[in-house]
């Protein structure tokens, strides 16, 4: 099956270990691979603007400490430390407009 020639409009597509010849729509072909989220990375949950940055690299923070204030959909949202730790990296500046899913703060 896998060595056989197939028509150019078709691709190989596996379901339950069987290989089918079929058209794979771009929506499926181009979908992003799932990656396990890294809990040490604080990422933007919506596109928006960083209003305040309250920590810097090297700071030790307690759980619940204010990390930054983020404006999205006209709401000012305070992002707090999800756990105690040390800040490894600040990946944005106050005033930055960021897209959804961008790294903002990384813990060590």
């Amino acid at each position: 099956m896998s060595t056989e020639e197939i028509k150019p409009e078709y691709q190989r597509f596996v379901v339950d270990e069987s290989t089918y010849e079929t058209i794979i729509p771009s929506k499926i072909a181009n979908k992003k691979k799932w990656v396990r989220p890294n809990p040490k990375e604080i990422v933007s949950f919506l596109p928006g603007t960083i209003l305040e940055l309250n920590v810097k690299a090297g700071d030790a923070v307690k759980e619940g400490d204010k990390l930054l204030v983020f404006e999205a959909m006209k709401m000012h949202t305070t992002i707090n430390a999800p756990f105690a730790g040390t800040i490894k990296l600040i990946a944005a500046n106050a005033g930055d407009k960021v897209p959804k899913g961008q790294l903002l703060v990384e813990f060590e």
Partner: protein
Amino acid sequence: MPLKKKILELKKRKEEVLQGGGPQAIAKQQAMGKMTARERILALLDESSFHEYDLFVEHSAREFGMDGKVLAGDGVVIGTGTIFGSPVAIFAQDFTVMGGSLGLMHARKITKIMDYAIKMRMPLIGINDSGGARIQEGVNSLAGYGEIFYRNTIASGVIPQISVILGPCAGGAVYSPALTDFVFVVDNISKMFITGPEVIKSVLGEEITQEELGGARVHCETTGNAHFFAKSEAECFEQIKKLITYIPWNNSKKALRFEPKHPKAQYKIEDIVPDNPNKPYDVRDVIRAIVDDSDFFEVQELWAQNIVIGFGRLNGDTIGFVANQPKVLAGVLDCDSSDKAARFIRFCDAFNIPIVTLEDLPGYLPGVDQEHQGVIRHGAKMLYAYSEATVPRITVILRKAYGGGYIAMNSRHMQADFVFAWPLAEIAVMGPEGAANIIFRKEIMEAENPDEMRKLKVEEYKEKFANPYVAAAKGYIDSVIEPQETRRFLIHALEISLEKVVERPARKHGIPPF
């Protein structure tokens, strides 16, 4: 003669209103490639069948300088007429009158024609071309939308409802089409979205055009909000007329019967499906080889193409077809294809249209994104829709019927009335490769040449289970038939199902997995 004078006055008054927004606004409408509201109605309905009502309705706004303004018909045309002799109620928003904006009286005209359609049990066609709420009328405008949505919902499943998007349809306005049965859109003319490009840009910083955000193609290919794509308004009207021939006037009637015709000789049913279950083909050719005059009217042709839905006729009667499409994604079920099929099944059931299911699928689409999008909830809609349907339901298993997909595609176990299978049919819990790997895991692992052993065991499994006879032996299949016999078996099954009765426990309504 006072009557003559009065008639002259009536004519003069009519003429004024029929000007709509005036020559300048009409020229602008035409420059956008759009017809006016009345031109559209006349193009769609049978010649001289249109009768207009509420021509002299005036708006009731008093604030923001609206007091002295005259708005012809308050920006919407309503009336009744016929399409191929069948009655329809229709409204068309008039963009030349204050952008077709919806105020209180505009909405009252729409709800009036909706009430007529519901009371007289005839299809409702709504032509949407409006800038949205009339801001000057404030909450009265919002009230108007709510009154329309309520009636769309009450009318659902009682009369067929058709929405035609021939201009902008934004914000709350989009929910009326979404509540109706079929949405028609035209390339470069239709625009539907909840929040437009400006808002998206100011809030999220994303730049996108109206066409890219909610144009005809987007709603036909990506969102599934629309059902029929046309390149021009004229083509769109032809599609609507054709749809009207397939559907009944209301839920207590059957669709009109047409002169039976044989399928065209060019579609040779025995030559379409390849023997190898891993090879693709276009399942629409199988439908064309079965239906009268090989005329298949596909619904949502561009969205979730791994399942095919649409109307055809068998011996003159309208049938709803649901078919796996091996040509796209091997015909798997996924979130979108389940939604697509489930809604169509519910339409057919509500309007007394028997359902024929053509089955050839390897199972469900695997993937994290599918699971996280809720393929459980979406897939369940199909089980619900089939199980709930009381119209005649017939399944033909053309080739593969594996696993959960086999159950979902109107299986005997969900009370299909008839299940037929072609000799190529393989009814099994999964494909032979996967099944052999599990059942013969030990033998394969311990063999001197595992690959050889796997091949052997796959063949063994195929020999034993990849056929229709295991299921037929249990009575899960009523008849194993030759492809050439399909049309005859279907027509007979439908004929003897005419008086089908299903008894169900009383309930207010079920709770389908939305």
